[in-house]
């Protein structure tokens, strides 16, 4: 007699079998992909992204802060059980590679909770598995010809060129953002300081004059 609330034997066996088959299907490295996103993180905010990853897939998370404050952000990557795989506070740029040890939803969060009034722009690139192949039925029986393998290696080299270009563009955006900040600050500072200078020097003279006007009455009293 099966226990109340539990499954009959055949259902449990069938369920395990289906589970195993599905897990096997997912283990076959399917088409992966990359997600490259730049988003704005307001102050005191935390934004999380999720992705379902199959076991054994090699994944890479790269992030970079482009504008805002001290150009740093907290990042945290958790596996489906909530175990923290990667945690860094106030990092400007980092890259983390891991292999998924189990199937499930992986979660990574960017937090700007330590900042009171600067909102940040964060770029991240989450690469899961390999890029999808050019042809849908890429499981070839015959080896690639020399031309084709040359094309494949050129493609990989160009992909890394594009990747370097992206990182260069982000660093340049960071530098340009700082230069524009500096430009505005210099403008405000010079006008503000000129005004303060004028106010202080005129104020000094009038304050000094007021000392001598009061003392006049007191000196006559002391003298007598």
């Amino acid at each position, binding site marked *: 007699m099966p226990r109340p609330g539990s499954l009959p034997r055949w259902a449990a066996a069938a*369920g395990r079998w289906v589970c195993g088959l599905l897990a096997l299907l997912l283990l076959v490295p399917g088409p992966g992909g990359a997600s490259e996103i730049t988003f704005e993180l307001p102050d005191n905010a935390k934004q999380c992204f999720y992705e379902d990853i199959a076991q054994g897939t090699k994944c890479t998370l790269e992030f970079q802060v482009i504008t805002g404050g001290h150009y740093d952000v907290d990042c945290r990557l958790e596996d489906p059980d909530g175990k923290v795989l990667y945690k860094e506070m106030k990092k400007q740029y980092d890259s983390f590679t891991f292999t998924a040890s189990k199937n499930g939803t992986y979660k990574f969060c960017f937090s700007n909770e330590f900042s009171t009034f600067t909102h940040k722009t964060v770029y991240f690139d989450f690469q899961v598995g390999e890029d999808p192949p050019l042809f849908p039925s890429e499981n070839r029986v015959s080896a690639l010809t020399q*031309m084709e393998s040359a094309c494949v290696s050129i493609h990989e080299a160009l992909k890394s060129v*594009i990747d370097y270009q992206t990182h260069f563009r982000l660093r340049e955006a960071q530098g340009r953002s700082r230069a524009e900040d500096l430009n505005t600050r210099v403008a405000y500072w010079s006008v503000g300081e000129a005004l303060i200078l004028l106010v202080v020097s005129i104020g000094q003279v009038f304050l000094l004059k007021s000392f001598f006007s009061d003392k006049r009455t007191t000196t006559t009293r002391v003298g007598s």
Partner: protein
Amino acid sequence: MAGVGAGPSRAMWQQVLLLLALCATGARGLYFHIGETEKRCFIEEIPDETMVIGNYRTQMWDKQKEVFLPSTPGLGMHVEVKDPDGKVVLSRQYGSEGRFTFTSHTPGDHQICLHSNSTRMALFAGGKLRVHLDIQVGEHANNYPEIAAKDKLTELQLRARQLLDQVEQIQKEQDYQRYREERFRLTSESTNQRVLWWSIAQTVILILTGIWQMRHLKSFFEAKKLV
């Protein structure tokens, strides 16, 4: 095969459901949660004449079953794309699943904003919506099997076409880099000019106020017969 596995049956069925869901979704993309009236914006810094394709899919949170429903008709997402000058390039309402495309005509930061305008969410969802998003830019936006079928290319020709597209993207990015470097240089030169003028103006103001102060005080003391 005995009744040993009957114990953690609920966990097992949940796992089966998860694996089924993983298989069924096909596009295993990135997703995030969005509130009811929340607006999420993404920035794409791209050179000009670059095509951007975005695919999204939304799922609503079912409060009773505590799971995300696979697809809900009637949900709508409003997509708005602004170019670097702030002009709106695309502003359209799509269904619960949609695909938006635009081509940039000026290089720079394009802003893609998504927000849900569905009122049904307040009643059923408890305010949470799951959005699967995938944005492809430039060469990644090309669908090579489709191009091969349309132009009837052989494998080698398709690979050559892919390499040509990649090289074109690299060239566009380098042109954009030249434009950005020019802007950076203009900003730095403007800062340099401002600092120069400010230091000259400061010195002049300082000297003039000093002279004025001395003259004013001198005439004041002479009037008071203290000097």
